[in-house]
C-alpha cells in the first residue's frame, strides 16, 4: 500500500538506500552532517553512516566540488550537496570543466560518476543572488546529465538513477517542493533518464515543463479543462537527455505546444524545446510554440514582484489559450 512522504524524505531515502547498497557512495556538503542539512534533507544520515560518509565542509564550493570530482576519478561515487545551486557559481569551473570533460580529456581513461544536488530556482523571496535556475546556464554543456524532479516519487526514483549513473549528474531540486508530500512506494524503484512522463493526457494542447513548474501546468490544465481546452501535460524529468520523441508525438496529436521553463527565456532549455519542436513538427503545428519563463530580469525580493516574475498559472493559462486560438 502506498505511503505519502515529503519530497525531502524521498531524497533522503534515495541517498540512504544507495549508500547501503554501495559503500563507494558518500554525501558531502555544507551543514549536511551535524546540522542534518540546511533543509533537513539529510536528517539522521550522520547517525546511520557516520562522519566518514556524511561529511560537513567549510564554505568552499570550488574546493569540495573539486574534491568530489577527484574522488570520483578514483572510482568513488560522491553526492555533493550545494545548499543552493546558486552557490555553484563559485564552483563553475570545477562543475563545468572538470566533471563533464574528464572522460573526454583523458581519452576514456577516467570517468566521473558524481552527483551534484541542491535547491535550484526561486525559493521564497531570496532575491537575485539566491534564486538561480542553473539549467538556464548549465544545460548548454555536453558531458553532464540534468535531472529535475517535480514530485517526491520522481525525486526518489531519479536520484537513485543519478547515483548509479557513471556520468556526472546535476540534480536540481526545489526548496519550494521540499515539504510537498506524495505517494512513494516502499518497494525499490528507479526512473530511467531521458524518458518524459505524460502527467495528464489531453488532445488539444501539449504543455511541456520541467521540475516545479510542472505543478503549475497541471493547475492550469485543470482550469483550462473547465473551458473545454484539454491539455496534455508532459513532465520532461530530465533536461539532458531530453526526451524530444515523447514531446513530438504529443504535438503531432495536439498540433500546438506551450513550453514552460522556470529559467530566464534567452538561450534557455525552453528555447531549445521550442526550436526542436518547430523543427520536428513543422508541418504539424497550427500555431507557433508559446513559451512561458521567469521574466527576463534579476529575481526581486518583494513578494508581489517575485510571484509576478515566476512562470505562474496565469501566464501558462494565457499561453495555452493563445496557442489554441482561444484567446
Amino acid at each position, binding site marked *: 500500500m502506498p505511503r505519502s512522504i515529503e519530497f525531502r524524505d524521498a531524497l533522503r531515502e534515495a541517498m540512504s538506500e544507495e549508500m547501503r547498497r554501495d559503500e563507494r557512495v558518500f554525501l558531502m556538503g555544507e551543514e549536511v552532517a551535524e546540522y542534518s542539512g540546511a533543509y533537513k534533507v539529510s536528517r539522521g544520515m550522520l547517525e546511520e553512516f557516520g562522519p566518514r560518509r556524511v561529511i560537513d565542509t567549510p564554505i568552499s564550493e570550488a574546493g569540495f566540488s573539486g574534491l568530489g570530482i577527484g574522488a570520483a576519478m578514483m572510482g568513488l561515487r560522491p553526492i555533493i550537496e550545494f545548499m543552493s545551486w546558486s552557490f555553484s557559481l563559485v564552483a563553475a569551473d570545477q562543475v563545468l570543466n572538470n566533471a563533464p570533460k574528464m572522460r573526454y580529456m583523458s581519452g576514456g581513461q577516467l570517468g566521473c560518476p558524481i552527483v551534484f544536488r541542491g535547491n535550484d530556482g526561486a525559493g521564497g523571496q531570496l532575491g537575485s543572488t539566491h534564486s538561480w535556475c542553473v539549467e538556464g546556464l548549465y544545460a548548454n554543456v555536453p558531458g553532464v546529465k540534468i535531472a529535475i524532479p517535480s514530485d517526491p516519487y520522481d525525486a526518489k526514483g531519479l536520484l537513485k538513477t543519478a547515483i548509479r549513473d557513471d556520468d556526472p549528474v546535476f540534480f536540481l531540486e526545489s526548496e519550494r517542493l521540499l515539504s510537498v508530500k506524495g505517494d512513494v512506494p516502499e518497494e525499490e524503484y528507479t526512473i530511467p533518464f531521458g524518458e518524459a512522463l505524460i502527467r495528464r493526457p489531453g488532445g488539444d494542447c501539449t504543455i511541456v515543463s520541467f521540475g516545479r513548474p510542472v505543478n503549475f501546468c497541471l493547475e492550469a490544465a485543470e482550469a483550462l479543462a473547465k473551458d473545454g481546452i484539454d491539455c496534455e501535460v508532459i513532465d520532461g524529468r530530465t533536461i539532458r537527455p531530453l526526451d524530444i520523441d515523447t514531446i513530438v508525438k504529443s504535438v503531432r496529436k495536439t498540433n500546438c505546444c506551450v513550453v514552460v521553463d522556470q529559467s530566464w527565456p534567452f538561450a534557455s532549455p525552453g528555447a531549445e524545446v521550442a526550436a526542436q519542436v518547430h523543427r520536428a513538427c513543422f508541418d504539424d503545428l497550427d500555431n507557433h510554440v508559446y513559451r512561458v519563463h521567469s521574466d527576463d530580469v534579476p529575481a526581486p525580493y*518583494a513578494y508581489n*514582484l517575485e510571484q509576478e516574475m515566476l512562470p505562474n498559472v496565469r501566464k501558462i493559462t494565457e499561453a495555452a489559450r493563445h496557442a489554441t486560438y482561444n484567446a
Partner: protein
Amino acid sequence: MATEATSRAGEAPLAAQLPPDTLRQWLRDMLLIREFEVRTMQAYQNRQVGGFCHVYIGQEAVAVGCTAAARDDDPIITAYRDHGHALARGMDPKYGMAELFGRIGGCAKGKGGSMHFFDASRHMYGGHGIVAAQTPLGAGLAFATKYEDEVIGRRKSDRVTLCFFGDGALNQGAFHESMNLAGILDLPVLFICENNGYSMGTSISRGTTMGHEITAKAAAYGMDSASIDGMDIMAVYDGIRPMIDRCRETSRPAFIEMRTYRYKGHSMSDPRKYRTKEEEEEYEAKDAIEKLVEHLKREHGFTDDEHTAMTKDVKKQVRAAMKWANDSPVPDNTELYTDVYTGYWGPYQGTSLPEMMRE
C-alpha cells in the same frame, strides 16, 4: 605582527578621551540597531518580512565602533548580515524596514531585501548575499578611491575602505584572492572579519584551519593584523582607529579580527542545536551595550532616567519606521523591468534612484 587590543575600558584611552556626547551617540546607535533587529524578528514571525533574514544582535559594537573610527566618506561594504552597518552609517530605519517589508519605499525599492541594504549617499556599498563575494568588491572600492586620488587627481581624499565579512568567508577563494590583490596593489582597505565563532552551524574550529588564530591568514599575505574584542565598543574604537589612520597614510591594507558573537540563530530558522545555552548566556553577560551604559554611568554621570529616555526614544523611532514602512506601497509590477539596464530598450524601463536618495 598581530597586535592585541584588550577590553578593559581603562585600556581604551582614545575612546576614553572622546566627548561624552560621542559615547552617548554610540550607545544610541547600538540601541537603535538592537531595537530594529528585535522588531525585525517580530515582523518576520508575523510574515511581514520574507526571504532570508539575518539579524545583527550581539555584534552592534563592531559596526558602530568601526564606522565611528572611520570618516563618513570612507566606503564600507559587508555581507548579508547588513542591517547594523547601514544603520550605523546613518540610514533612516524607515528605509531599511520598508526594504524588509518589500515596499517601494525601501532603500532598494523592495528589490534587494534583508541581504541587500545599500546607501550610496552614505558610502555604504551594500549588503551582499554570496559569502566572501563582497571582498573583491571591497578591494575595488579601495582601488577606486586610490585611483581618484592618483589618476583623476581630485584633491587627495585618502579614503579608507572598510570591508566586513564573517568568519565563514575565510574559507572562500575570493577572500584569499582579494587579500593578495590588496597586498600586491597596495590598496587602502581594511579586511574586517566579524568572527562570531560560527558559520551557520559550523563552529570556526570545524571549518577553518588555524581557526584559533585567524590573524595567521593575514601573515600569509604579509599583512598587518590585529585581534580585537568586538564585544567592547571602546576596545573596537581604540583597536581599529590607529589602523585606519595608518592605512590612510600608507595606503597599505590590513586584516582585523573582531571577536564577537551573534546572540540569535544564523537566520530566522535556526534551532541553534550546535551550541549550548550556557555559551550563549556567557556572551550575553558580556553585552556591549550594557558595558557602554556602565561606562557612561561610571565616567560621565549617565543616569537611569537618561537611559530610559534614550531607550524610549529609540523604540519610538523604530515604531515610526515600521508604520512608515507599512504605509509604503508594494512596488508596482512595472518595477520588475526598471533598474535592470540604465537605458530603455525592449521591455526595460530605465533606472531611477530610490525615494531615500530623492529626499
